[in-house]
């Protein structure tokens, strides 16, 4: 926000409005401990590998899994002891869980009805929501007759129809095939942008997270390992998991001037001036491979490696290398053929210092 812009209402009331939570859930050896602060109108994505605790965090927010510690405040009201049916929370479940015996309309009307609306009121509200989701024609359809994308929108309408102050989405696009996914992702983005309260979504798909969310919170092993804007996280990954998600080679070491001495492995020369613990990242496309040691090469970042595996990656070949520095390298199909790359082949890999990116750890 620039200094010139007038203070926004939600910023003024930042102490109260929105979500303020520390979720601690202990279950056997697993411990989730995640702190979340989200302003109204913001969409936060919890991103993480399977079993990281994302869904547990979501269930704790909805009240379906009790907290063993921490706190949960929404718009200044503590929800710690509020049972799930009394929380102003809407949930879109992973496989939607539309009630199979009710029509789309009655699915959406279920929430308002439970919150005290008369049957007629609830149905009128539901019809309005379906209309907003372009589903007016499918109001009387049973869930099994809806397509994946339609079911997703009914689920969203059902969650929004109770007027929640916190919208939770669990892997909202995971149940869709690739083609519908693209379309539904765009629709969902539009609906989320128009949602004025707090939205938290859980996903293991970095693209979903980056398209839908204003801010990413990366969870591994029950704790937050990194959070920030999608762009920031894509450029400065701090764990191997995130580096893999955003497709970067990532190393950790000790920086001294233009050199980063890796914890395990050789030095990497970079253009940034740093000192102390640092990360170095570079994309696989920045790597150049040679079969013979390049004569008179000026590249300081030259490592002897061995091909551990090859797979097609778009129109490129991605080579998985082990050796002095384990890394992923992208080469064109033609180059791969000319280099006669195969598993076990010895290669030299270089990266220009200007293609690397170092930042403090």
């Amino acid at each position, binding site marked *: 926000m620039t200094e010139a812009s007038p203070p926004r209402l939600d910023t003024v009331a930042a102490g109260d409005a929105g979500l303020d939570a520390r979720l601690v859930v202990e279950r056997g050896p697993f411990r989730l401990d995640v702190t979340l602060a989200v302003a109204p109108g913001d969409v936060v994505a919890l991103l993480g590998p399977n079993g990281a605790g994302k869904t547990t965090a979501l269930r704790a927010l*909805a*009240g*379906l899994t009790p907290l063993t510690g921490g706190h949960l405040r929404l718009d200044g009201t503590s929800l710690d002891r509020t049972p*799930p*049916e*009394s*929380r102003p*929370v*809407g*949930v879109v*479940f992973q496989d939607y*869980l539309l*009630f*199979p*015996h009710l029509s789309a309309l009655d699915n959406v009307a*279920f*929430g308002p009805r*439970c*919150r005290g609306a008369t049957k007629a009121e609830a149905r009128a509200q539901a019809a309005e929501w379906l209309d907003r989701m372009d589903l007016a024609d499918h109001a009387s359809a049973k869930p099994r007759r809806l397509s994946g994308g339609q079911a997703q929108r009914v689920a969203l309408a*059902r*969650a929004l129809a*109770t007027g929640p102050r916190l919208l939770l989405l669990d892997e909202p696009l995971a149940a869709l095939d690739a083609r519908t996914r693209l379309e539904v992702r765009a629709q969902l983005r539009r609906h989320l942008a128009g949602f004025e309260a707090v939205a938290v979504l859980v996903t293991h798909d970095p693209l979903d997270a980056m398209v839908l969310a204003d801010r990413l919170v990366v969870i591994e092993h029950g704790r937050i390992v990194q959070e920030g804007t999608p762009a920031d996280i894509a450029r400065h990954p701090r764990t191997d998991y995130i580096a893999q998600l955003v497709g970067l080679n990532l190393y950790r070491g000790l920086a001294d001037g233009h050199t980063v001495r890796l914890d395990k492995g050789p030095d990497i020369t970079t253009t940034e001036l740093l000192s102390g613990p640092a990360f170095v990242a570079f994309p696989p496309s920045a790597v150049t491979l040679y079969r013979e040691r390049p004569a008179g090469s000026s590249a300081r970042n030259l490592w002897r490696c061995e091909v551990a595996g090859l797979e097609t990656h778009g129109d490129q070949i991605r080579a998985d290398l082990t050796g002095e520095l384990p890394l992923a390298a992208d080469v064109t199909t033609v180059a791969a053929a000319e280099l006669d790359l195969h598993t076990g082949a010895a290669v030299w890999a270089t990266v220009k210092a200007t293609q690397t990116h170092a930042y403090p750890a």
Partner: protein
Amino acid sequence: MISPHDKSAAVADTLTGGPRRRRVRNGASRGVPLPLLVPALAGLAFLLLPLIALLVRAPWSSLPEQLTSAEVWQALRLSLVCATAATALSLVVGVPLAWLLARTDFPGRGLVRALVTLPLVLPPVVGGVALLLALGRNGVVGQWLDSWFGITLPFTTAGVIVAETFVAMPFLVISVEGTLRAADPRYEEAATTLGASRFTAFRRITLPLIMPGIAAGSVLAWARALGEFGATITFAGNFPGRTQTMPLAVYLALQNDPAAAIALSLVLLAVSIAVLAGLRDRWMTAS
């Protein structure tokens, strides 16, 4: 070892058409091993022969006369009323009990579940004796029922219903519990996040979802209640018009008027077949 649950679930599956099986068309003719085929046919014959005998020896000529007698209708009506009432009673308390067993976790749940299924394997006569000791005029609870409310259960029509409920309800509970366990509990969670109390979620979401299981369980319980003999005669006695149900009437008739016994048996057989046929039509095509 087959637990009573598996057994009754299997019965329920058979009744409702069960998990759909692919029909193997050319499997039967192609090499069924004799050691399997012979016992299989013997088993089939063993099951069918008594029914055939019943039809063969039926007093077809005097049948209309037998069946129009007042006693037969009295017994049949009493049987239908009592079996239906017992099923209704089982539904009212059995479905919540099944929910409790399937959806909650309390200490000793396994034991409670075992006790619920006990009447499935308990000899019905023993059940009748136990009912007498509990609800009889001098029973543990019965004496209070008698002195406080003037309610006497043994040897009354209400007693028949109680005895039939005792033996039939476990069938319903086990069938409904199985269906509940198979139903996704996350639907209830979804309902909860929409503002439904746990009871509302049960009533508006779970109940409709498990209706096939409830229906199958009701039919099992109803059929079991209709055929109930041991507990009924022990607890409620054998008074025509009051506690003499069809099975009791059949047994009594067999001693002095075998032709009447056969006629009554045919009626029960017809009712059973009608139930089975009705079920097959309804649930095999509907689902």
